[in-house]
């Protein structure tokens, strides 16, 4: 056990170059567990001394994705993260601010001279009408009518803040807890901690937008300094997983024969090193790959979905981008149904298609947000309603997030809103979430968080908590520091939890 750089947790994290430490293997290997020699060995390494509850996932090298116990009883077993890339304007969607109508076109005191992109202009009222929704009467704008209809199932947080007003850093901060690159993503932390139920599919899938990757690319689903086993696997309805299929020139029978011979050669070789977990782990990885070759094509084949499902999600109407995003939404549901632990669904990318790349709206917010909403609204609402109807929200947490918000005022001489890291809205839905409520509030203009100001550390701590993980105890030693998703910050937002 090693001293902790941060936080009160006392347990050790993983040292050693290997994903799997042999000591873990020994400790979990039944035959050896009782031996005196082994106990001495473990005591020598201080592994028995952990008292405050180990944070070190017990990882067996044969099965890096094996199910592992959470820190405490979880509310949710799986998580779907819907990430609206480019920063959605909260004041035009979910954060209703009547004062914006009152001050429309004015520049009241307190507005800074310069924000991210440059000089500021005047307050601008929401570009879409707000209406009360459902039992809760939550005011949501007409920009997202289908999603708005589900407001009773959501728990909104209106007082989120980020520590950066730049997109790539913002994506990094939201998804990894650090603005700089190279830190593990939320999905990587979760699969490192919990493994996954379905060994035939990746534990963590990142479904990219039809247009391409977000600004920070792979860093959003990367494993950082965690073993590469925990990085998200990225594929989508339109873009299959690289190297999944057998090579075109090789027949199915020949491929099978090659696999068998490989197994035989590896088995023969392993006899020289009885009990070697590294060799066994690599043999197992080929078996798992073989199973994925069967199960991934199955899960990505949307033809088996009935016509009414396609209709519900909208795979056949609207723009091509919307149709493709709708297919990704169906894929997300199918993956979750199969027990994939973390699904990250992107709406927006760095690359452009049809004149739009994401929610970023420095100019012409009316048209850019409308174009993006056309892609987002129907398929997302269908996905959520479908999951609800199938009972999936009992075990699945849904997180709808964006890297920051947008300003209540326009840019100088402009028609768009600049980035706002001091107040924005995200929402949770599903397992463990206090539905139909809102937490925290921004000021009269939606300019700064005013009540229960919260950080993305808090938000991520809450997500981990719902998954049965203590964000302070889920750590990994890297270069001198026990690293966490939440750095040295974060408090669980209990008010959002049912």
């Amino acid at each position, binding site marked *: 056990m*090693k*001293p*902790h*750089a*941060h936080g*009160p947790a*006392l347990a050790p994290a993983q040292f050693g*170059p290997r994903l799997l430490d*042999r*000591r873990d293997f020994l400790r979990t290997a039944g035959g050896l567990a009782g*031996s005196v020699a082994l106990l001495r*060995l473990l005591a020598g390494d201080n592994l028995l*001394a952990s*008292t405050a509850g180990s944070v070190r996932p017990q990882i067996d*090298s044969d099965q*890096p994705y094996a199910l592992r116990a959470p820190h405490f009883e979880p509310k949710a077993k799986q998580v779907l993260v819907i990430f609206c890339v480019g920063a959605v304007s909260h004041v035009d969607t979910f954060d209703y601010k009547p004062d914006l109508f009152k001050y429309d076109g004015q520049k009241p005191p307190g507005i800074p001279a*310069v924000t*991210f992109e*440059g000089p500021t202009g005047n307050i601008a009222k929401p570009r879409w009408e707000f209406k009360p929704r459902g039992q809760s009467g939550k005011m949501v704008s007409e920009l997202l009518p289908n999603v708005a209809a589900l407001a009773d199932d959501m728990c909104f947080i209106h007082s989120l803040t980020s520590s950066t007003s*730049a997109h790539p*850093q913002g994506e990094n901060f939201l998804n990894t807890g650090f603005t*700089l*690159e*190279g830190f593990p993503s939320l999905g990587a932390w979760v699969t490192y901690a919990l493994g996954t139920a379905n060994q035939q599919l*990746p534990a963590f899938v990142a479904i990219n937008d039809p247009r*391409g990757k977000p*600004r920070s690319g*792979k*860093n959003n689903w*990367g494993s*950082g*300094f965690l*073993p*590469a*086993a925990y990085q998200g696997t990225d594929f989508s309805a339109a873009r299959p997983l*690289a*190297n999944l299929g057998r*090579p075109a020139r*090789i027949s199915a029978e*020949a491929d099978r*024969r*090659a696999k068998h*011979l*490989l197994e035989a*050669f*590896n088995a023969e070789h392993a006899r020289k*090193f009885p009990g*070697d977990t*590294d060799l066994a782990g*690599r043999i*197992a*990885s*080929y078996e798992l*790959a073989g199973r*994925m070759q069967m199960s991934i094509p199955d899960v990505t084949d949307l033809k088996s979905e009935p016509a009414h499902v396609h209709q519900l999600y909208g795979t056949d109407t609207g723009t091509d981008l919307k149709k493709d995003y709708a297919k990704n939404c169906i894929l997300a549901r199918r993956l979750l149904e199969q027990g994939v632990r973390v699904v990250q669904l992107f709406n927006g990318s760095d*690359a452009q298609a049809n004149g739009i790349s994401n929610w970023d709206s420095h100019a012409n917010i009316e048209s850019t947000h409308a174009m993006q909403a056309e892609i987002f609204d129907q398929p997302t609402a269908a996905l959520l309603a479908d999951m609800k109807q199938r009972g999936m929200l009992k075990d699945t947490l849904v997180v709808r997030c964006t890297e920051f918000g947008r300003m209540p005022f326009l840019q100088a001489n402009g028609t768009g809103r600049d980035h706002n890291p001091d107040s924005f809205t995200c929402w949770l839905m599903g397992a463990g979430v206090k539905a139909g409520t809102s937490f925290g509030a921004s000021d009269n203009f939606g300019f700064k968080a005013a009540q229960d100001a919260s950080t993305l550390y808090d938000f991520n701590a809450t997500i981990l908590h719902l998954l049965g993980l203590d964000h302070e105890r889920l750590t990994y030693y890297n*270069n*001198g*520091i*026990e690293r966490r998703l939440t750095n040295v910050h974060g408090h669980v937002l209990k008010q959002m939890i049912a």
Partner: protein
Amino acid sequence: MPRYFPLSELALLAAVLTTGPFVLRISGAELPPSAAMTVDYERDVRPLLAASCLDCHGPKKQRSDFRVDVKKIVFAGGAGGLPAVVPGKSAESPLIHYVAGLDAEMQMPPAGKGDPLTPEQIGILRAWIDQGAAWPEHATTAGEESAQWWSLLPLAKPAVPTLAQPVGTPVDAFLEAKRAEKKLTASPAADRRTLLRRVAITLNGLPPTPDEIEAFVGDPDPRAYEKIVDRLLASPRFGERWAQFWLDIVRWSETNGSESNLYRKNTWPYRDYVIRAFNSDLPFDRFIREQIAGDALGVDEATAFLVSGGFVHAATVGREEPAIRQARSDRLDETIQSVSASLLGMTMACARCHNHKFDPIPQKDYYALAAVFQGLEYGHRPWRNAPDATARAARADSLLSQFNAVRDELRAATPSWTEEWPDHLETRFAPVRARAVRMTFVQPAVAVVEEFQIFGAATGETNLALAAHGATARSFKPAEALMREVGNVIDGKFGQTFAWRTREASEKADPTAPAPRFEIELPAEAAIDRVVISSDREALAHTDYLIEPGKATASGPRKYRVEVRGDDGAWREVAHVDLPVRVVPGGRAAAKNAAPAAPPNEATRALLSRLHALLRDYTDALPPPVFAGYFVPPVKTHLFGRGDPMAPREEVVPNGLTALRTDLKLTSESGDQERRLAYAAWLTDPQRNPLTPRVLANRLWLHVFGRGLVDTPGDFGQAGSSPSHPELLDWLASEFIASGWSAKLMIRQLVLSAAFCQSSAPNAEAETIDVDARLLWRFPPRRVEAEVLRNATLAVAGTLDLTMGGPGFRIHADKRRYEGWKVVDNFGPGTWRRLIYQENMRGIDDRMFTAFDRPECGQVTPKRTVSTTPLQALNLFNGDFIVTQAEKLAERVQREAGPDVAAQIKRIFALVHGRAPTATEAAAAQTLVAQDRLPALGRVLLNTNEFAFIE
């Protein structure tokens, strides 16, 4: 009389310690039970105190004059000071009373200052006190209590242990002494085939050829192995193997990271420099000094080390002051991480925000290191020592004088002309007195101006248009013409974020509306003769593979008028520029309807054409830019409260570590180069800094044996792992220095040890004592890295292209500025050089070997993780790379073994595994080949565990 507690606390303590009944009343029963475990101060107690108490009772603050990190204060008794800890008596120790909250008013940590300790944590503290409150002497941190931590102690060369039975080399004597303590014995020597493959991969990253194996197996010379080692060390492949480890640590990459992740033109010279350094066995101390201050030592490319991390472009930082300061602070932090992880083995990162909680690194030390590099900026500078630098310089001189002669001719022939430099436009005209300059841009093309400069013959290279020199700018805004503030063009900053741009006139625009324009007013009338317009210098000069650089030029103005007003108030036109519009692939045609300026006469056109030919040759002859950072006058460094650049505190001067009592004798006025030279000298002076040689010796060990003597090669502090063989580490570090910092001699010594040459066969009994073979009772087998897997595949297939150095091979497509890199060819013949020569884009999956734990270059990687994933299996079994190489391997085997299948199978085993197949293997292989032909067997063998492990 020292007083450690305020009066109210004294009163309580007095009651606790002196009033018998009171003591009885609280002892034991109300406190959480003592933990039933053997407590270790380092492991169990210090982290707990650090987490809960140190903020208020530590180096930063000493509430009630008390601190938990100084032994004598915690235990202070007598002379008025009351002990917080009474060894052996936890129930009577005030510390326990406080944390257990016996008196609500004395609850520690107080409400709002942290969570109360859990009963388990209190139990640990109690157990520690009850067990005698052992507090090792070295365990006091930061500050005046000087460090006794092992890695900071002076380096002394320990004696080689004398053993009853002498073994192998001195290295083996150290190892044997440790093994003997655990009743372990070394394994017998490995067989020669295994040993040769092990040492060839360790030293050169490639497996031996069948001929090399047979020669070694049959070599009767007792020095046979030594000869092999010397040959491998002398091979250029050695540097290509070992440079990678160094590049990993500093996360060297050829792009900047972040959103645009732009390619860094000419960053490969650093990769080649590191390879060369290993191949020529450049003394490591020299290697370090060059990487810190190569600009002063004739090796410009070496300082790429300092800027090997990523950074965020100005465009992505934004315009807000806190963000701009944070970005600068982050850039320096990247440099600090490179230096500390690779050379110091001290994790300075913690000290950015607060004193290091475990190591004696006060926050001041972090900023002292920041001050050392305060003169560093991320970017390019001329590569003055490029291989053909001398020839280039002579050529540039000669071209420049020809160029100037043509300029003189032009001056006589025409009142004005415009020179198109690679990254800017320069419009020259007859000298004129100017109080103001007006630029008018002809629509409909978009014009982008990031910086506008005005020069005069008398004022030389002084830019008269700088706002800092008193110039002012204003623009005129005909409908929808302008987007950004015109002040950007005279702010001295390049980069398109800080640009002024016109908007493209729409079809509907009023054709009679005035064209967009700006005016620069000078503080006083001055003689001027040229203006310089920059649109996108950075992209044009410092990156490659951008789809838009042509577009950037086109978006720079092509048609404009330059007018000048003197103190007399009259405007006169001094130039009317009409440059041919560049055709941009994918870009829009521009300026269709603009009225042409008066065309130059034929003689002028000829002169201009000669001038531009010379200009191109001249700029080609100039030292190429190399991505190795550039240097600026250092500003004063301040400590930032909680790491926040908006909260500067006291001034900090450049220096090394306080714990080593460093004094570099530098001040805030010291020049940039002086700082770095002084720091580099300190880094490489073992008398003053014992860390660097220890860190390096450990690193060399790590890459030979697969695991360091210290298992955390970037962290020799107290959160790191302790050395398995401390004396051996110091002995190696001393040897390293004595050998003149020769990496090759050190590595030679290690691979000649019996420990390296022993068998890797398992041994159940030894494994129960030392399962990981840290004590080296066997050679620990291990997986090969991505590089070895790939390079070995190419080598056995006979396709490896051994071309060394220069620009790497590309697997990616060109891209737009805001777009990701896409892999287009990661398997074709153009990619068959060693993997170290693959262009390395930060944070980008190469769709093949990234899955094999190749670093993404986001954070420093002192040691790679090793994981086993199904994606690796998919890539290696189905990817085009292996399928192609399996076919090449089959072709080679057929060529070398002829048509007989049995001979082919023998040959393919010899090439891939360096041995003959067993009878069972041969039979199974024969069956597969009969059905699916030889490439199928190649694909299988290249996927085997035997090929992917070093035994």
